[in-house]
């Protein structure tokens, strides 16, 4: 018997009991949709957690520390020699933070960096270019809003945070800082040193502005200066504060960037072999993934129970179909239908019920998922007067979840149709012809 004829046969049988078949399909649809929706919550929380971790760091970034004190240039050279290391980003903290532009002043976090290494590590600029000469600097995206005119004393007292922010903005610099020259004051944060002695300044030019941070709530008003400028100003600062003498050679932060995320594990091992401590997103994600995989497996297991319940409906429908059609089966067997043909017809029928259920269930789950993710922020804002966390989603259905759900639902469906189909093959021809079954 050809597949096309089996299909025609099954279709006509299904049409005969439309209501019962559709009720069974509905049960399968609900079971499948429940499984996908439940697991999608786990997938969504996992995705949010991973995205959150990755928004702070890059996948190919390894943070390096040393047990025996701060890292120095010699350590950087050792790290650069490791295979698959793309760049070694290193920062030296500069203990002078005051910069001015006319009547505007800012107290920024200043670091000296190796500009070529930063570029290689993936530093992205919103405007401008990388520094080419000693006195050129790069500023953070929010630098301008921290560059303010002097505000009256206790200006923000009695104001809410939101009001204070709004009022302070009126004092902030509102022009374009690119290509502007700032005065960098050689002042150190040490109460024992008199202000009058800190009169030296250096002129620096803004040549680049960094990209806005990925998170809405993050601000970046830092300044990046060149190594050459660092070498020039550190003697000036040491003159003012001799205690700084020994700190000019050590790095406050060293990060290694590998050629690809796949190299992180191997490079981390090599760095550890050289006696350094390492930390990377990959290692954090590994632990996170183990935890969430177990969590998602638990949710899928619970969801599968709903599918199992729906499969009882399929079993029942197929058993009734076999009982009702026993005479037809007997006639077909008498004429020459093999048990295999009979079995396949009934398996096909349960398969179709399952397929409809899985198809409709998946579509329904996607619609509910989109609906929830669309409506959730509106509901939270309406009833709680608060915005939900940025990028938060309650339901996420990746293709892998769809594949898992379809596989579970179809397997359960076929298993539940197996016994009725096997029963159909055992119909006694003589009893069926005598209408005794």
């Amino acid at each position, binding site marked *: *018997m050809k597949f096309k004829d089996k299909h025609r046969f099954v279709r006509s049988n299904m049409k005969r009991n439309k209501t019962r078949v559709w009720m069974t399909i509905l049960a399968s649809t609900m079971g499948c949709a429940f499984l996908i929706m439940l697991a999608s919550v786990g997938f969504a929380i996992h995705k949010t957690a991973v995205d959150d971790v990755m928004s702070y760091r890059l996948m190919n970034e390894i943070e390096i520390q040393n047990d025996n004190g701060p890292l120095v240039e010699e350590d950087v050279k050792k790290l650069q020699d490791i295979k698959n290391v793309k760049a070694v980003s290193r920062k030296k903290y500069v203990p002078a933070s005051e910069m001015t532009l006319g009547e505007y002043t800012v107290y920024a976090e200043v670091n000296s960096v190796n500009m070529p290494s930063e570029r290689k590590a993936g530093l992205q600029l919103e405007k401008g270019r990388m520094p080419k000469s000693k006195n050129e600097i790069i500023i953070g995206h929010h630098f301008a809003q921290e560059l303010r005119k002097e505000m009256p004393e206790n200006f923000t007292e009695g104001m809410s945070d939101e009001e204070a922010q709004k009022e302070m903005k009126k004092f902030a610099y509102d022009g374009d800082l690119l290509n502007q020259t700032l005065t960098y004051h050689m002042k150190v944060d040490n109460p024992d040193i008199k202000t009058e002695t800190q009169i030296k300044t250096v002129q620096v030019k803004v040549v680049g502005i960094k990209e806005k941070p990925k998170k809405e709530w993050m601000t970046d008003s830092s300044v990046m200066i060149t190594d050459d400028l660092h070498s020039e100003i550190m003697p000036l600062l040491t003159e003012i504060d001799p205690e700084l003498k020994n700190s000019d050679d050590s790095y406050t932060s060293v990060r290694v960037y590998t050629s690809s995320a796949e190299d992180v594990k191997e490079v981390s091992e090599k760095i550890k072999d050289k006696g350094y401590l390492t930390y990377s997103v990959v290692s954090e994600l590994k632990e996170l993934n183990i935890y969430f995989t177990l969590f998602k497996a638990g949710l899928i297991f619970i969801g599968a129970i709903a599918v199992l319940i729906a499969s009882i409906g399929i079993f029942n429908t197929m058993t009734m179909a076999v009982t009702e059609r026993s005479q*037809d089966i007997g006639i077909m067997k*008498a*004429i*020459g*239908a*093999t*048990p*295999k*043909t009979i079995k396949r017809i009934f398996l096909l029928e349960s398969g179709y019920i399952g397929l409809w259920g899985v198809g409709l269930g998946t579509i329904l789950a996607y619609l509910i998922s989109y609906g929830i993710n669309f409506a959730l922020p509106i509901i939270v804002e309406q009833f709680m007067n608060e915005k939900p966390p940025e990028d938060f989603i309650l339901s996420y259905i990746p293709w892998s979840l769809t594949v898992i759900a379809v596989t579970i639902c179809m397997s359960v469906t076929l298993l539940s149709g197996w016994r009725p189909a096997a029963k159909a093959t055992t119909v006694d021809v003589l009893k069926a012809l005598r209408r005794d079954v």
Partner: protein
Amino acid sequence: MITVRNLSYAFKIGKKEKENIVPVLHHVDLQVAEGEIVAIVGRSGSGKSTLLNLISGFIKSQTGDITIDGQQVSKLSESKWAEFRLEHLGFIFQSFQLIPSMTAFENVELPLVLKGVSEKERKDQTMKMLKKVGLEKYQSHYPGELSGGQQQRVSIARALILNPPLILADEPTGSLDSENEKELLNFIKELNEKDGITFLIITHDHEVASIAHRKVEIRDGYLREGSKLHEVQR
């Protein structure tokens, strides 16, 4: 065409392990030649239907051999038996045994569907067969919308659609009136004479037995072919 040797059969009746053995057939020997019409007659409960069911493969033989069209069938598996029936045997039943949810066309077409014949070829052959039995106008009627005679003709069309060399008929006129019975018997004779189809007919009706080339009587499960006591030459 059919050779039955030393065939015995006993039904097991009652609960397992406490069942009663009821012998039905005893050492039956039967030969049916190609192109012959053989009627097996006997009283109710004599074992004639059991003999036909054994030859059809609907029940499995316990002892003895059955050979049909040169093939020993008594040891065939259920699947092989089904394939053999489809290829070699046609059936005419007393109660027609048509599938009620299928039209006359679909009932006749069913063996071709099971054999995997293409749709176009099926349509041609089925229409030809319905024409042969005079039911081309009733092709889209369901069995419930046809008279007993028409249903039996659909059943015959279905039995003939794959051109089997042997047709087994179990009380074929049992549900028909005298006019339809006469028509059916003429049709069987015509099929036998024109197409050379072999018929093995189970009946207790002398009218039906009268068209057979040989009449074999079965009594209390005993049948001895060739014996003048049990075999009456036409």
